[in-house]
C-alpha cells in the first residue's frame, strides 16, 4: 500500500492516502474530524437536505483502512459527530456499520468542540489520551510535546507548471502533528492561513494525502513568525 512513513517522537508512524494515521508499533489507527451526521444537522435547521450518504462514505473509507492495516485499536480524534446528540440520529444502517467496525477492537472517542459529552455508541469516551511518548487530543495545545491533534482540517496548495494542486494534508514539526479531516463533507483551512502558519514550528512539513502520500515543506504565509522550536 502507498503510505508515507516517518518518525515522530521516536515512533514510526504511517500517513495513509485517506488521511488516517497508522501506528504499527501499537496497532493503532487514528482518524480525526469525521463530522458524521453533518448532512442531517443542516437539514434539521431548515437548510437543504444534502445527500445523506456522507456517513456511509466516511465509514467505508475507515473500513477499508482497518482492513489493510489490521489495526486493533481505533482513536477518533474528536468532532466525530457534527453536533452533540447526532449519534442517536444516524440512520440505523450507519449505526450498524459503526458497530461492525467496533467488533473485536478497542475504540476511543476523543471529545471535540462539535461533540462534547458522552456518546451512546460503544467504546471509551475521553478528553485526551496518552500512549507511550504520544498524546492525543482534539485541539493543539500551547505546550505540546509529541501531540497528535485534529480540528483545523489543514489543506496544502501549490502550483506545478502553472497548474494549481491542492489536497488535505498532515502537518508535522518537532513537537506536534496535526491531522487532516477524514469525514466526507468537510472543508479545510489552507496551511498558508495565518492560523496554521503561526501554529506550526520552523521546518514544519506537510504530508500530502492522495494516491501517493509524500512530504513537502509546509506551504506557509510569509511574514508570520512560527512558534519557536523547543
Amino acid at each position, binding site marked *: 500500500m502507498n503510505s508515507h512513513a516517518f518518525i515522530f517522537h*521516536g515512533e514510526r508512524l504511517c500517513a495513509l492516502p485517506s488521511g488516517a494515521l497508522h501506528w504499527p508499533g501499537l496497532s493503532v489507527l487514528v482518524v480525526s474530524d469525521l463530522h458524521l451526521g453533518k448532512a*442531517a444537522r443542516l*437539514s*434539521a435547521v431548515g437548510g437543504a437536505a444534502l445527500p445523506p450518504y456522507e456517513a456511509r462514505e466516511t465509514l467505508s473509507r475507515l473500513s477499508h483502512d482497518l482492513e489493510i492495516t489490521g489495526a486493533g485499536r481505533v482513536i477518533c480524534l474528536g468532532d466525530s459527530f457534527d453536533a452533540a446528540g447526532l449519534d442517536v440520529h444516524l440512520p440505523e444502517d450507519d449505526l450498524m456499520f459503526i458497530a461492525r467496525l467496533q467488533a473485536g477492537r478497542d475504540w476511543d472517542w476523543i471529545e471535540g468542540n462539535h461533540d462534547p459529552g458522552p456518546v451512546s455508541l460503544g467504546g471509551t469516551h475521553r478528553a485526551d489520551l496518552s500512549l507511550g511518548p504520544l498524546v492525543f487530543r482534539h485541539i493543539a495545545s500551547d505546550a505540546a510535546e509529541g501531540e497528535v491533534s485534529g480540528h483545523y482540517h489543514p489543506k496544502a496548495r501549490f502550483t506545478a507548471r502553472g*497548474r494549481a494542486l491542492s489536497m488535505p494534508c498532515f502537518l508535522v514539526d518537532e513537537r506536534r502533528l496535526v491531522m487532516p479531516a477524514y469525514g466526507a463533507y468537510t472543508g479545510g483551512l489552507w496551511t498558508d492561513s495565518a492560523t496554521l502558519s503561526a501554529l506550526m514550528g520552523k521546518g514544519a512539513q506537510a504530508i500530502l494525502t492522495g494516491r501517493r502520500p509524500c512530504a513537502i*515543506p509546509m506551504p506557509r504565509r510569509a511574514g508570520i513568525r512560527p512558534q519557536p522550536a523547543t
Partner: protein
Amino acid sequence: MRAAVGNRGGADYLDPMTDLPPSLQAWFDARGWALHPHQRTMLARADEPATLLIAPTGGGKTLAGFLPTLAELGEAPPPGLHTLYVSPLKALAADIRRNLGHPIEGAGLGIRVEDRTGDTPSSRKRRQRADPPHILLTTPESLALLTSYEDAARTFAGLQRVVVDEIHALAESKRGDQLMLALARLQKLAPRLRRVGLSATVEDPAAIASLLARHPDPCAILQADPGPEPDIRMLVTDEAPPWSGGGAKYAIPAVLEEVKRHRTTLIFHNTRAQAELFFHNLWLANEDALPIGIHHGSLDRGQRERVEAAMVRGDLRAIVCTGSLDLGIDWGDVDLVIQVGAPKNVKRLVQRIGRANHRYNAPSKALLVPANRFEVVECIAALEAARAGELDGEPRGRGPRDVLCQHILIAACSGPFDADDLFEEFRSAGPYAALTRAEFDACLDFCATGGYALRAYDQWQRLQRRADGRWQLRDPRSAVRIRQNIGTIQDSDTLKVKWRGRGGAPLGEVEEGFAASLSKGDTFLIGGQIVRYEGLRELVVEVTRSPGAKPKIATFMGTKFATSTQLSERILRMFRQDSWPDLPAHTAQWLALQREVSRLPSPGRLLVESFPHDGREQMVVYGFAGRNAQQTLGLLLTKRMEEMGLAPMGFVSTDYATLIWGLDAVTDPAPLFDLAALEDGLDTWLAGNAVMKRTFRASATIAGLIERQVGGQRKTGRQATMSSDILYDTLLKYDPDHLMLRITREEAMRGLVDFDRIREMKARVGGRIDHVRLSRVTPLAAPLFLEPGRVPVRGSADERLLEEGVTRLMEDSGLAEVDAGMSKPKWRVPF
C-alpha cells in the same frame, strides 16, 4: 426612451390620438411629437392578452409599451399597482423611471412610478409591498422575491399589465424561465393581467411569443418599421493588428481620432479586463484630455452612477464599456458605436449598433475594431452576415427543472399550496408547457425530502404535507434562507476591491479566482487605475495606489459569448480562396503565412496541428463545427489521450477549433479519432468531467441544494466549489439516478452535442486527417491561447505534475536531506 419623432407635417406625422389623457396629448403636441405607427397600434390593441412588439432600438419601443398604461391610468388614477415593468438590468429600471418622469410630470399626471431592484433600500421595499406605486419597475429576480411574500396576493391584486423589456435578452437564459414562472403566479393573483413583450430584432419572433403568452393563449406579434440600414464598417488603421491578443492597443490613435470627430462615442469591449486595459491605454494617449469614462459590471455602484450621470449631462465624449451598457439604455446623444474585438455573434452586433443615433429615421453608425488578425476575418464575415440580415440564435428548448425546483420553494414561502394547482400554474408558463406530472412530482419530492433513494430526512422534511393535503414549509424560518437564494444568475464569485486604510472606499470587484492568483506586490487595473495588491482581509481585496507601474493584466471577465455557426461557415468559405483581395493586406499576408507554414482548414478534411508551447504540448483540431461540437470533441479526445497515456491537462473550444494541452506530444492523431474507442466508457468519462461538475454546481444552487448565502454571509467561492464537487461525487457513487444528476446531465447536454454530430463529422472527414507537426505556434492557433472557458482535465497529468512539484519543492528547500535526517530516531522510550 425617446417619445416620438417627426415634426408636425412631416412624413411620419400622425393624427393626435384621442384616447391619450388630454394633458399628455397636449404635452406631446407642445413638443411637436407624434406617435409612430407601432405606438398607435399598441394603444389600439391594448386589450390583447399578450402582445410582442419587435422594434429597433431607438424606435420608441418602451414608450409603446407604456402608452396603454398612461391612457388607462389617466390624470387622476385610483391607488394600486397597475403596471409592472420588468427589465434585465437594474440600470435600465432606473433609466426608465427617469424617462417616464418627463411626460408624467410634464403633463401633470398623478401617476406614481418607482423602481425596485437589489439596490433599493429595505425600508422602501417594505412600503412598496404595503402601498405599491401605479407603475413598478423591477428585474426578474426582484419580482420572484416579491411573489415569495405572504402578502403577494394583496400587492398584486389589481395588477392590469406587465411589460417585459428586452425580452430577447431574457429569453436566452434561465432568467427568462424564472420570469415566466413568476408571470404564471401573477396571472393567478390577477387573472385579468395582460402581457406585453418588447424585443429587438430577432430571428424567430414566434418562439419568443410562445414564451411570453400564458399557455395556450395566442400572442399577437407587431413588427415596427426596422428603420434605415445601419452604417457599419471596419476601422482601417495604418498599423497592423497583432497575431493574437485582445487589447487592440494598436488602434488607439485611430479610435481617438474618431472620438474627436463625434459628439459621444460608446466603445464596447467583450470582456471587462479588455475594457480596463483599453481605457488605460486610451488615457495614456489622450493628449487633448478629452473627457472619457469607463463603465462595466465589476465597478462599484457609486462609480457607475457617477459615469451614468455625467453621460446624461452630456459631459463625456466617450465611454469605454462592456455588456453593462448593452441593453438599450438611452443616455445622451450617442452618434458612434465602436466595437473592439470581433462581435461574437451577429445578433449582438446588430443590437449594439442600435445604441448609436437613437433617432428613428437616421442610420446608426458603427465601427468594428478587430483586436487581432483572426478577428479581422471574423469582422468581415460578421459584416457580410449583418448586411445579409442573417441573425443567429440558439433555440432554448424546454424550461430547465432546476428553476422549477426554486419556484416550488418560492411558492411554499408565500403560503401553503395545492400540488395540483401549482402543476397547472407551472404548465401555463410557456417554457414549461410540456412539463409532465411525473417530472413535476420528482421536483416536488426533491424540494420536500431531498428525493434520495435513502429516505433519511423524513423527520426533517423541508416541505410537509398538511392534514388538508396542501404543502407548507416545515420550519417557517427557512423562508429567509430560500429568499436569500432566489435567482438564476451564476456570477462567478467576486470579491470587493478597496483601498487599504483611507476609509476603504470601494473600487469594484474581481473574480475570486483572479484574487487567488495575486501575490503581494502584483499590480492590476481596475476602474482605469493601476493598483498594487496588498492582501486579503475578510474577503475584501486591499490595494494601494501604484503609479507608473506596468499592470499585470486583470483576468476578470465580462460576458462570454458564443459565435454563431453561420460565421464559422462564412470563414471556412473565405479560407478556400486563393487570395484575399477583400481583406486588409496585413491579414491576407497572415493567412498566406498560415498556408505556407501549415495549412488552412478546408471542408471535407480535418486539420490537426501540434507543437510545444508554454512548457506544454499543444494540439489544435480545426473542426469548424460550432462551439458545442468542438466542446464535445474536446471531451472525447482528452478521454482517448488519457487512455493512451498522453496525460492531457485541459482543453478550450471555440466555434472553429479545440485546443488541447498536455504533458506529452501527439505524434499520430489518427488513432485518437477511433469512433469505437471514443464511445467506449464515454458515460463514465463525462460523469467525472469538470464540465459536469460546473453544471452541477450551477443547477444545485438554483434548485436550492447548495446555498449561496448563509445567514446573510456569503460562503467564499472556493468553499462552495469544493463542497459542490464532494456532493456531486457522493451522489454519483450512491444515488446515480437522483433528480439533481438527471438535471445536471440535461443541462450539460445543452452545452454539448450528441455523439451523432461527431459521428457525422467523422463520416464527412473519413481518413482525411491532415496532421502538421510544428516547432511553434501557428498564426491561426495564436488567438486560441487567450480564449476563456478553459476546461481542466484531472487525470494522470495531475499525478505526474504532483511528483514534479514535490521533487522541486524538496530540492528547493534542501529538505531531501532534512527528511533523511528526520527518519533517524532521536530518542526512543521503551514500553
